[in-house]
């Protein structure tokens, strides 16, 4: 039980040292800011293409609570959820692995007063800041195109960040077990089917019962359903379940990653 204790205090009070890592990343990206900016356009292109282009052919689909909603409103929150997942996963797997194994960024950071927990928190904090920028941008587009109008929409921001947190922490934990770049295909093996089948593009009633239950257990479905019910404004008790699920998932990932990093970096 010492591990969660070691992680939670920094989590709750914030370690000022972890901020140094965020500052470092700001400096690094000052030269390649276009990479950061470009991340905003990906979900936007998907929204315009699948939501509006294909959406014309789809018409209305059953949304949360069974009421028919326009396809754009159905897919926009799902795209936000999956881009939160994808953004966090990319940062926490490929980029994290590169810094860990090749650039040896963390080894040099550890020669300063920063601790392993500071690194985990700092990297996660950075991923969340990026996620927050994209989410605000995407929500702005949703409002301008008047796709979502529910006052609950405001809660989409923390909810999307929760998704980034959960996937970022678990992604980092998984990365700490990776040996080569080829191992990352295993991550794709999990992420791509989740992206396609978690009720992102169409309602779950297309599935047989058994498969629907499996899908409902996936973390992306939790996120998609949470954001969708907020965007549509039909919020029920299931939202609490989703929030709890994602929170536990993120904390579990964080515990694993700080234990693993200790081993990998300090051994």
């Amino acid at each position, binding site marked *: 039980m010492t591990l969660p204790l070691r992680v939670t205090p920094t989590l709750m009070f914030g370690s000022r040292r972890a901020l140094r890592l965020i500052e470092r990343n700001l400096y690094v990206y000052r030269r390649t800011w276009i990479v950061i900016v470009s991340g905003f356009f990906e979900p936007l292109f998907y929204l315009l293409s699948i939501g509006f282009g294909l959406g014309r052919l789809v018409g209305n689909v059953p949304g949360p609570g069974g009421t028919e909603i326009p396809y754009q409103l159905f897919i926009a929150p799902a795209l936000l959820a999956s881009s939160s997942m994808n953004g966090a996963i990319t940062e926490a797997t490929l980029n994290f692995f590169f810094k860990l194994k090749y650039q040896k960024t963390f080894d040099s950071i550890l020669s300063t007063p920063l601790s392993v927990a500071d690194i985990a928190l700092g990297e996660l904090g950075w991923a969340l800041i990026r996620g927050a920028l994209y989410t605000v941008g995407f929500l702005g587009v949703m409002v301008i195109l008047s796709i979502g109008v529910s006052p609950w929409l405001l809660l989409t921001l923390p909810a999307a960040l929760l998704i980034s947190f959960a996937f970022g922490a678990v992604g980092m934990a998984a990365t700490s077990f990776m040996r080569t770049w080829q191992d990352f295909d295993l991550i794709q093996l999990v992420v*791509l089917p989740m992206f*396609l089948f978690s009720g992102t593009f169409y309602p779950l009633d297309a599935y047989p019962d058994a498969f629907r239950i499996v899908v409902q257990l996936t973390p992306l479905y939790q996120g998609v359903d949470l954001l969708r019910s907020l965007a549509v404004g039909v919020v029920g008790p299931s939202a609490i379940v989703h929030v709890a699920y994602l929170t536990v998932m993120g904390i579990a990932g964080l515990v694993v990653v700080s234990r693993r990093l200790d081993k990998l970096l300090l051994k």
Partner: protein
Amino acid sequence: MAALSHVLEHRAVQYRRTFRSSVFSSFLSPVLFLTAMGLGLGGYVDRSGGAALGGLTYLQFLAPGLLAATVMQAAAFEATFPIIGGLNWQRTFHAMYATPLSPRDIALGNLVWMAIRLAMIATVFTVVIIAFGAAHSPLVVLGIPVAVLTGMAFGAPIAAYSATQRTPNKFNVIFRFGITPLFLFSGTFFPIESLPGFLQPVAWLSPLWHGVDLTRGLVLGTLGQNPVAMLAHVIVLTTIVAVSTWAAVRTIERRLVRG
């Protein structure tokens, strides 16, 4: 020709060690995409908007487009990291240049290898299309070379550009602002007639649209309905490949000779 085959041999030996990782992307991903988008989402499209697809089911409409688009994405990847790796990271191209191979052999050998990789991906995808029952003509087999041609219309110019780069920083921009929008707006997921009027001529500029339209004509056997347009597609794509292959030979040569 003999010299070129040594480059191919090198790439093949290299590929044998890492092919495991490409199995997922080239086989499973078309199956997953066609199941989710073609069948899952397609159910909703067919229910309400089938007329816009000219009587096709959404699966039939999507499959050929996705074939061309998938090959395009693979080409973009093959034309960036392996090229910059050969010229900057592992410097295998420089090593080859130290042998009797000429820069031209090295450039063409790598482009031919790219075409072979794309043909493998296209073949697997075509088998999946047939298994899904989305092919309507024996001409579906010709979809493979056409998809490769489409892919090379991206692979060759991007390779020419990659050879001028020393870091991969700009690649992200190519993928995000080039490949992804083309993937989404070139008639792959919905007919370009559904785009706002002013955007339709823009879609004609997309090499992917030419590839998608041509592949669709072959897979569905509707080629004969508009033979002139189909011929135009072939001419556009072949011209792009020819010009940019020349450009790629030039840029790779320049990097090898002048450093």
